[in-house]
């Protein structure tokens, strides 16, 4: 198995054949979907449109990846065409959802993901057309695909809005948040590309990949691990909502054995970092080879644990420590765990792409200075959006609860995000920070954004009621 990690992939198919294959794939999937639609007689609803978007994004992702691996320029043309088509379908899904729900689609995590994916696709096209960062789709399209898949798993029913959420200001707040976060995500991707172009060693990326996975699994395990099982929120399939013991206190059920399995995966994802550290001390080149194989093995284990989690969370009834009886759970009840697991696999795959195709990547990416400049520009877009997002949220809170700032964890972390980016801007302007240090700062900023988005809701005590 470890051999595979060392094997160079076959020389990619020539320019036309991949395009034709992806085109045929899209056509086939659309045709199959069309047959389904004809049978059900309901063409335009948001899940069909979302399915179309998924098909197009997948096509675009494949082509961008093909471009990333081979550098054939025609791939990008077709990839952006597919992205356009996906964006169109995505827009339709948003519009339909809006129409069906009667309010802007920002109420649930499903609807926010819908907006996030839309923004990401739009920004990808902007970055490509305006700044010529063609390869950006290699990173953003897989994220979009993961987003759409997550949405398929999460609930799709239109839920009526509780009174506190019926506010234009809330919509403004969430729209700005999604725009700001998408811009932050873009700046993160650009900063990573900068580090590639800045000749940062592949070994350092190895350590970073391992560190990310360790953090993810540690986060999941410290919060959800219980006696070797995994403690997840119970899900009421009738009412399609989380179950509560008391007001604001969720009911947790324990999926047995999953905790041990995750501990094993934690060890597997930590192995490359350990080997890297030993390599730093001893300089034994062999160790890095082993570490790279360990990454490959850890991907297999991560996929295994993901499948295990998918299967066990989808059906089956489990006992709880807080209440008698057996309860079911659902993937929709554990978006943090799900995104953590998927994210871990995705990041490790990106590392493998870098490991195998570094030279090609370097050839195709814009120069380091250019990337540094564009990173700054995306942050110059993200920062005012973050500011306005916080202000709109404060205004909404003031209209709803009579207080514009109450140091709620979500608010506090939004402020921390703002401070980190403010720090970036100050260091850049007054201290002339460029290059590496600025890129690290941009990466730190996005890490804080991710924590604010996911971590605060799912990891911290005292949950923010509306996610």
């Amino acid at each position, binding site marked *: 198995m470890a051999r595979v990690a060392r094997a160079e992939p076959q020389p990619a198919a020539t320019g036309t054949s991949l395009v034709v294959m992806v085109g045929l794939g899209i056509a086939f999937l659309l045709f199959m979907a069309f047959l389904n639609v004809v049978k059900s007689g309901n063409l335009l609803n948001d899940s069909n449109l979302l399915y179309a978007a998924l098909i197009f994004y997948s096509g675009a992702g494949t082509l961008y990846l093909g471009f990333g691996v081979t550098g054939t320029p025609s791939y990008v043309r077709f990839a952006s065409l597919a992205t356009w088509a996906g964006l169109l379908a995505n827009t339709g899904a948003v519009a339909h959802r809006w129409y069906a729900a009667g309010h802007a689609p920002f109420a649930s995590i499903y609807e926010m993901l819908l907006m996030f994916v839309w923004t990401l696709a739009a920004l990808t096209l902007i970055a490509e057309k305006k700044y010529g960062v063609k390869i950006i789709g290699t990173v953003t399209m897989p994220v979009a695909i993961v987003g759409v898949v997550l949405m398929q798993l999460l609930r799709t029913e239109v839920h009526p809005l509780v009174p*506190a959420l019926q506010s234009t200001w809330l919509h403004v707040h969430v729209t700005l948040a999604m725009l700001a976060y998408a811009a932050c995500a873009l700046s993160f991707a650009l900063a990573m590309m900068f580090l590639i172009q800045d000749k940062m060693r592949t070994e350092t990326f190895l350590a970073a990949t391992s560190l990310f996975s360790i953090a993810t699994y540690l986060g999941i395990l410290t919060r959800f691990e219980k006696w070797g099982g995994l403690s997840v929120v119970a899900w009421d399939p009738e009412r399609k909502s989380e179950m509560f013991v008391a007001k604001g206190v969720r009911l947790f059920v324990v999926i047995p054995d999953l905790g041990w399995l995750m501990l094993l995966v934690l060890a597997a994802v930590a192995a490359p970092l350990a080997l890297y550290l030993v390599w730093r001390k001893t300089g034994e080149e062999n160790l890095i080879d082993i570490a790279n194989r360990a990454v490959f093995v850890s991907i297999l284990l991560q996929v295994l644990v993901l499948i295990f989690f998918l299967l066990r969370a989808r059906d089956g009834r489990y006992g709880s420590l807080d209440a008698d009886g057996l309860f079911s759970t659902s993937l929709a009840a554990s978006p943090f765990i799900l995104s953590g697991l998927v994210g871990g696999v995705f990041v490790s795959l990106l590392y493998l792409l870098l490991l195998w195709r570094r030279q090609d990547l370097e050839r195709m990416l814009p120069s380091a200075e250019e990337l540094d400049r564009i990173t700054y520009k995306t942050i110059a877009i993200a920062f005012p959006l973050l500011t306005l997002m916080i202000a709109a949220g404060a205004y909404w809170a003031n209209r709803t609860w009579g207080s514009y700032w109450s140091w709620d964890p979500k608010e506090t972390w939004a402020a921390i995000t703002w401070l980190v980016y403010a720090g970036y801007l100050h260091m850049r302007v007054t201290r002339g920070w460029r290059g590496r240090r600025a890129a690290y700062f941009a990466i730190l900023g996005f890490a804080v954004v991710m924590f604010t988005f996911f971590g605060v809701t799912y990891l911290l005590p005292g949950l923010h009621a509306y996610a």
Partner: protein
Amino acid sequence: MAATQSIPRKIWQTLGAIKTGVVLLILVVIISAAGTIILQRPATDADEMQRAYSPSVLRLLDAVGLTDVFHAWWFVLLLSLVSLSIIAASLQRFPNAWRYFSRPYKSTDESFRNALPNHALIPIKDEERALSVAERVFHKAGLGPEHIVRHNSFSLFGERNRFSELAVYIVHASLLLIFLGGIVDALYGWRAFVTLNRGQQSSQVQTQNGAKRDLGFAIRCDGAGQENYADGTPKRWWSDLVVLENGQRILRKQIAVNDPLVYRGIRFYQASYGKTGKIDKLVLIATPRDGATPKDITIGPDETVPLDPDTTVRLAEFIPDYVVRDGQIYSRSSEVENPAAHLVVESRKAHRAVNFWLPAIPGFEENASSTYTFEGKDLQMAYFTGLEVSHEPGQWSVWAGVLVMGFGLAVVFYLVHVRVWAAPVRDARGQLMLWIGGTANKNKDAFALRFRELVAEIEAELKVSSKAGAETPVTSLTGK
């Protein structure tokens, strides 16, 4: 003497240093992050705190103030230090920026010409004509050129959006405005709660620490309600509120979640809504025993309703969920599960009051001796409305700060200060050249392109207007 003077000065310098600012900000970040990880006092109730931490840890956390980080004196002190640092940094840097702003560098000496990143040389024959062409092109580009006359030279200077140089101070000032609002609210603001039943009024509210606070006017609730979606989840809560001052009705408004009532800077929010367990209206069918036609009556708690000229009925008691135990009637809950109504039927002629229970509860009811029988038809429970009351005199400063910051950030990031210069010079071989230079304070790569366009335009115009131009112009451009 000098030493004593230098200590405040040193403190001032340290406050304004970027390092101090960064250290302070890192501290704010770490402490606020800690405040989100450690359970906080007012939000988490005491029981839960005791469950989460061991007694000794909890004592320690309480002593240090980590269980209420955001209101601890040292956190406030830290934020004040941040404010001071912003003030010091801005004031120390402002004079330089102001000099730069008020006395722009307009003339072009040789060292300046060589140091400028974007400049170009175009061979010319006639100084005046070249300058007028440059002036025209600058003007068209919106750079409003002015003539700079020195004792032996004549040149052009044009610029746009000089204001953008000061924008960063606007952003800092806006941050201080927001802080100011926050401080004012921390000192003079308060939050309170009041619960009103329908028709009830109150001029006092209960603040968070349990104290009573006089409003100086009264607030009355004329009605409250809930609207539901088809699936039964709440859609809207509302209350009809009236502001009364000296018994006079001043203001009335239907408030809802997200839509408060404001009077004299005090805001009333729809915070909660629920059943009081008391009845509001009971609709009954009253049937006389003498065989006359039954009629509907509507009765409220303790209300007396005439049934005929001789007889009246009073609703003495309403129990939403009754249970009989040990010869007593108790109410199990405030939900209408098992309701019982105690009616008193009085006959004036007979001077007699009869207890009528609906339903008949043995041992209490005297239903058989009543001249009327009653049957329940409908009932409406009374609801209370819970109002969050808040007074935040500093919020206007906060919103003003937010608006100013939005404006300031837009200018900081998107308004580019562009400057251009043009001057006739002689190169090393004595050839007459038009020197053109330009600079921008941000987005420099885009400006480099724009600058090339400007130069090309001037060059083209010079060529057109000198159709007799025999020599081919040799233009040298240095970009970036």
